[in-house]
């Protein structure tokens, strides 16, 4: 898996994975127009880990949906690996969602009453070049291994803890070996210890070359990225590089503390 990401990202290392040029998104409900995004410009270089913050209504989710090719901007250009997304049709967007982007939802969105392994298989079933069942099984198992849930393959979501469910969701986002991971409040429903574990996993994947864009409400979670963008009223208010904190070392500190307590 390590080789996978470096090979993919290495090629385009100097190229912007995401290039947003004056993106706007206006919803019209009845006669009222709601300007969710008023003109967003930014580029994301390969291998970066970006946090996007902002209060609710600032346009975070709209931006994520556009970045994830689930929605199209009203105006502006969105270049993903150099391809203009705005011009693509519904099915072509589906193909990009399938192969280029991994999306992690706040609410996990796992198929209920379906094993972790089968949840992994879902994106692989929709690959444009169908894989053999053997390859599908193998890739699904590998993805679960990355997030450390190889021993929970047969568990259904209801048999897993929240953190484990989120890790299954992350594994599902990774199973098609995407170049870009988008995470919409991935720690929103988790306790701080579990959140830290998820962030540690993100940092590990990022170190291996995966570009990550994560929306979060929590400032201390945002600190683990190397760039923080703050949105306000559909515009970028702040965009700054930061020294990223190491989730691994904080996790270690946490462990040490809890050991000394017990």
């Amino acid at each position, binding site marked *: 898996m390590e080789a996978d990401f470096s090979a993919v990202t290495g090629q385009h290392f100097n190229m912007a994975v995401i290039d947003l040029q004056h993106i706007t998104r206006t919803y019209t409900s009845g006669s009222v127009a709601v300007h969710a995004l008023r003109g967003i410009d930014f580029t994301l270089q390969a291998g970066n880990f970006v946090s996007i913050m902002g209060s609710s209504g600032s346009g975070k989710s709209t931006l994520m949906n556009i970045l994830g090719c689930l929605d199209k901007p009203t105006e502006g250009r969105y270049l993903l690996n150099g391809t203009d997304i705005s011009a693509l049709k519904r*099915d072509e967007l589906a193909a990009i*969602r399938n*192969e280029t982007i991994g999306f992690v939802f706040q609410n996990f969105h796992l198929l209920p009453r379906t094993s972790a392994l089968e949840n992994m298989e879902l*994106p692989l*079933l929709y690959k444009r070049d169908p894989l053999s069942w053997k390859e599908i099984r193998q890739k699904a198992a590998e993805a679960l291994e990355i997030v450390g849930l190889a021993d929970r393959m047969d568990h259904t979501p209801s048999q897993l803890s929240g953190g484990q469910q989120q890790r299954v969701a992350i594994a599902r986002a990774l199973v098609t070996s995407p170049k870009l991971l988008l995470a919409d409040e991935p720690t929103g429903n988790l306790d701080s210890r579990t959140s830290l574990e998820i962030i540690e996993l993100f940092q590990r994947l990022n170190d291996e070359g995966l570009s990550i864009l994560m929306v979060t409400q929590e400032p201390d979670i945002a600190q683990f990225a190397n760039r923080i963008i703050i949105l306000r009223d559909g515009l970028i208010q702040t965009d700054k590089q930061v020294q990223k904190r190491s989730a691994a070392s904080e996790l270690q500190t946490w462990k040490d503390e809890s050991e000394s307590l017990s």
Partner: protein
Amino acid sequence: MKLSAVPITAIKALRRNTMRTLLTALGIIIGVAAVITMVGLGQGAKSEVEEQVNRLGQNVVLVFPGARQLGGVSIGGGSANTLTVEDAHAIRDEIPEVIAASPEVRSQRVLVYGNRNWFTRIYGQSADYLQIRQWPIESGEMYTEEDVERAALVAVVGQTIVDELFEGADPIGETIRVRGLPLTVIGVLAPKGMSLMGSVQDDIVLVPYTTAFQRISGRSHAMVINVQVFNQQSMEIAQAKITDLLRERHGLAPYQEDDFTVQTQEEVAQAATETSRVMTVLLASIAGVSLLVGGIGIMNVMLVSVTERTREIGLRLSVGARGRDVMLQFLIESVILCLLGGLGGIALGAIATELIASYAGWPALFSTEAMFTAVSVSAAVGLFFGFYPAWKAARLDPIEALRRE
């Protein structure tokens, strides 16, 4: 989407809600079973009629009294007293193509033998009736021309009479009574089975028509004249000649309609076949309605399923499923549901056909043709009624779908 994953996904989805799947399929099961049973009964009746045509006898023409239809004006119908014994004799004697003619008179009477009795039909016929009907004698012998002439008190009985009145014992030489009139049994007919109209032909007693007219029925006119023509080619000309002869004998002026009807056995059989065909179509249509209702049930459940699984659809779309992948998934699910129903319907239909055939004694055929039709029809029902829900699912917007609770 990977094609082999489509049916697997569909079956998993159906198994997740076993009870609902079974109840939905039940609608199709009942519909298909009804169609199969009705078609089976219809085809059974049809083949029975066809078989009857062969059993009817060879080159037979039937002359009925009265005209059955006269451009809307009926004059007397089939029971009019227009055919006489002399008409029958004239047909036999004056038309060269005719080799036998038997005036028929039927009565329903109670037979008494010892302390047993049996309600049956007594047919007055000429001595050559069995030759006309190609009906062999099993034991004993048929009455003769002389027996007819002197109105002898003799009878030839069918197999049912032997079984019911004599309890299977040999009846030859025994005396049975009809309203006190003693008849000596001189022959037993070979078993024949069911008639066109579904009555048991073996439930019959044959007596000379003279005996029937004078001593049993109290009638003076023939109800039918059974005529045998000597070969197939002469049938049409014989029919024409019979018509001319009877018009002349009945003194009909050219402007008057026939007061009788001449029909070949084939025409009678055709009418019966047509009747059974119409019945089959009618019954199958009614059964088809229940299949339609089953299909609507499928549509209902698939619509509920699409609504319930909106988030799943949203998820599938967001991980790369195209609209048509989602559509295919729901279509196949509906088709599999219907095919399940189709298979169950075949099984239930086979059992029902068998039960009706053995219990009600109706002839019924379980045809593979009806089976294939049922399966393809149920698949078509699945496609048709699954299309709208599937299309609805495919049109969903991934973001909206994911947000739906």
